[in-house]
């Protein structure tokens, strides 16, 4: 590239974007394509494809956000994943390096769960201030941007693997609904990136770039316009504002430990659902004593992952689940909202392979996961097949991100505490999923099943939610803060509810839509 942008710290005409993942990276490129200049501040480093190896633990160490976090509340992470509530990436490209590529739209009813089910005790369910119909055109744009396989872009599905075949036949035998997953992984060469070679290790970063990630799509495209400057290794400490309550700039620390203030016309926060609310809380001031944009008190609240867990069946003959894409297919029979099952909302069963390294850690997390039974289970690795449960997690006000009163991180910022306890709906749903999986796997000869509790969460949502009224949430239907008109939330923290599907496609669709809105506001001089 010949024309990489370099902007001055006192340039106050810029959009400053915090985070470079599915949300931030997409907003940056969408704005750049419209001629709008931005600086992207990314806490992590820049990786190259050569850095991405086919090794689970090596990549875990290389990519993960490992700054100190504390798990609290009733979920098993408080005991078993004490300092790793979430499994997300620190690097240019963010968690779009790690995601598996599953690209499902929310269903229309999943934007209005309160109207659908009424009040649910112990939960803070609300309708989104935006409807499926309003988002649908942006889903189309997102699917084309990301090259989603199948009907979405009229491209072939990825080829069938043994892992998929087992689930397809099991679904046929049990009357469940099976589908190849719509994936943001090229089944044919597309957008200058090659077709998938069925390498596996999708979640360790795609070594050949067949999977969409902002790391090698949106980010370099934005840079190529000469209108976007990416600053890696820059951790944002605080968003500053003026007397009128408008954001004026962002204080950050660069790779050499120097504190710098980047001025801004608009600030977009896209640091994932733990860091985004943490930053707002850390930006408290005399004018905003409870944190920036937090007059509703909702910043950090309604933290959602997905109702989840893993199920691994053991079969009489080899499956070799590790061959091919990590998530090749889906069982979708339980996606509907059908309270007759004893719970509201739905779930998707996503076929998911783990390697031997991760399986040894997650098969039975906690201090008792050793011994002859565990060793024997692992000896059956080759004969195993597995799914990951992706169920709608209810928003609960007390499931939240807070700042630790005394513990500080390497930058002197209070460490985030992630408090979460299952709602009873979550428990009933998870057990329903385990029992459906037992039916499914028995139909194809399973000799044994292992039910795994939730992994550290890669789907993190809801901590700066949208709302129609400023008293109910943090941002409006465009992701614009109710309290601070030139502050936007561009990641999954703006989600109102979590749906029964992976969040990335919706994050990207909302980011494209938000960029359109920002461009309009800038043009008309409203911000």
């Amino acid at each position, binding site marked *: 590239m010949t024309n990489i942008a370099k902007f001055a710290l006192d340039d106050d005409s810029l959009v400053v974007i915090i985070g470079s993942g599915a949300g931030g990276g997409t907003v940056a490129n969408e704005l750049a394509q419209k001629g709008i200049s931005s600086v992207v501040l990314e806490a992590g480093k820049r990786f190259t494809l050569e850095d991405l190896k086919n*090794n689970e633990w090596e990549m875990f160490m290389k990519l993960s956000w490992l700054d100190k976090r504390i798990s609290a509340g009733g979920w098993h992470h408080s005991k078993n994943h004490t300092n790793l509530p979430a499994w997300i990436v620190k690097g240019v490209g963010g968690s779009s390096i790690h995601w598996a590529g599953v690209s499902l739209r929310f269903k229309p009813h999943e934007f209005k769960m309160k109207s659908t089910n009424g009040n649910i005790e112990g939960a803070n369910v609300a309708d989104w201030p935006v409807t499926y119909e309003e988002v649908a055109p942006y889903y189309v744009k997102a699917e084309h941007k990301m090259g989603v396989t199948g009907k979405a872009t009229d491209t072939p599905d990825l080829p069938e693997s*043994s892992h998929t075949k087992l689930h397809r036949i099991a679904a046929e035998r049990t009357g469940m609904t099976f589908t190849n997953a719509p994936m943001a992984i090229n089944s044919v060469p597309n957008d200058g990136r090659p077709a998938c070679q069925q390498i596996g290790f999708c979640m360790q970063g795609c070594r050949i770039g067949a999977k969409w990630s902002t790391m090698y799509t949106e980010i370099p495209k934005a840079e190529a316009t000469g209108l976007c400057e990416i600053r890696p290794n820059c951790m944002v400490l605080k968003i500053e504002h003026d007397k009128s309550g408008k954001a004026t700039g962002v204080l950050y620390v660069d790779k050499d430990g120097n504190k710098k203030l980047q001025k801004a016309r608009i600030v977009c926060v896209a640091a994932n659902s733990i860091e985004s609310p943490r930053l707002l809380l850390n930006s408290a001031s005399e004018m905003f004593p409870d944190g920036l944009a937090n007059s509703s008190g909702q910043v950090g609240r309604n933290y959602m992952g997905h109702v989840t867990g893993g199920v691994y069946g053991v079969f009489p003959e080899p499956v070799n689940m590790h061959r091919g894409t990590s998530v090749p297919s889906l069982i979708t029979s339980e996606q509907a909202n059908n309270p007759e099952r004893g719970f509201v909302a739905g779930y998707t069963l996503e076929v998911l392979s783990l390697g031997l390294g991760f399986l040894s850690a997650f098969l039975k997390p906690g201090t008792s996961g050793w011994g002859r039974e565990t*060793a024997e289970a692992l000896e059956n690795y080759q004969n195993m097949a597995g799914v990951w449960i992706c169920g709608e997690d209810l928003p609960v006000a007390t499931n939240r991100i807070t700042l630790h009163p005394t513990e500080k991180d390497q930058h002197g910022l209070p460490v985030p505490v992630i408090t979460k306890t299952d709602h009873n709906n979550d428990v009933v749903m998870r057990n329903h999923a385990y029992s459906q999986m037992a039916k499914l796997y028995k139909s194809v000869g399973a000799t044994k099943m292992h039910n795994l509790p939730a992994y550290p969460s890669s789907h993190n949502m809801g901590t700066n939610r949208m709302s129609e009224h400023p008293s109910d949430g943090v941002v409006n239907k465009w992701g614009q803060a109710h309290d601070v008109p030139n502050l936007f939330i561009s990641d999954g923290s703006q989600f109102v509810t979590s749906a029964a599907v992976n969040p990335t496609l919706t994050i990207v669709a909302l980011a494209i839509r938000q960029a359109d809105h920002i461009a309009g506001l800038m043009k008309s001089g409203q911000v």
Partner: protein
Amino acid sequence: MSNNDHSTSRRKFLKNTGIGVAGTIVASTLSVTGSVAEEAKNISLPDSPHVSKTLLKMAKDIYPHEMIQNKYYQKIVDDLAKQQKRLIDEGVAMLDEQSIAKLGSPFLQVNYEPDRVRLLRSIEETTFFIKVRTALMFGLYDNPELFPLFGYQGSSVEKGGYLNRGLNDLDWLSE
């Protein structure tokens, strides 16, 4: 990836285990990670044969695999005993003390497996046990040399993935 890279990453993980993916077994080691570097300076060789033999016996109770030769277990626990000499020496002494108190002889001389396992269960939350178990978990299951024994094929990118290499060869289920 070379073996060298691999063991570096594993060491790095072990050093950083406080961040906790493998759960408490990993998270609880946080309290001792601070002393790793300090202890590394104080390595004193040779190892005690008793410590080495006791750790091997313990290792084979933690993750018993007939198919894995002793030398693999031995190297993992001996490396750990060198890296964290004081913790391991004290841990083995504690294990023997409890073994004598509960079973009448040092751990190495307890022949009945269920007795040994019960004893190990009673100390499974100690830092000593967690350190040994974590080292074994990475040393056995994140070790490309041992992958073939489990039918796991590890890295595939250098072989062109599985697109034309057994992606869909499952033939034991009828449609």
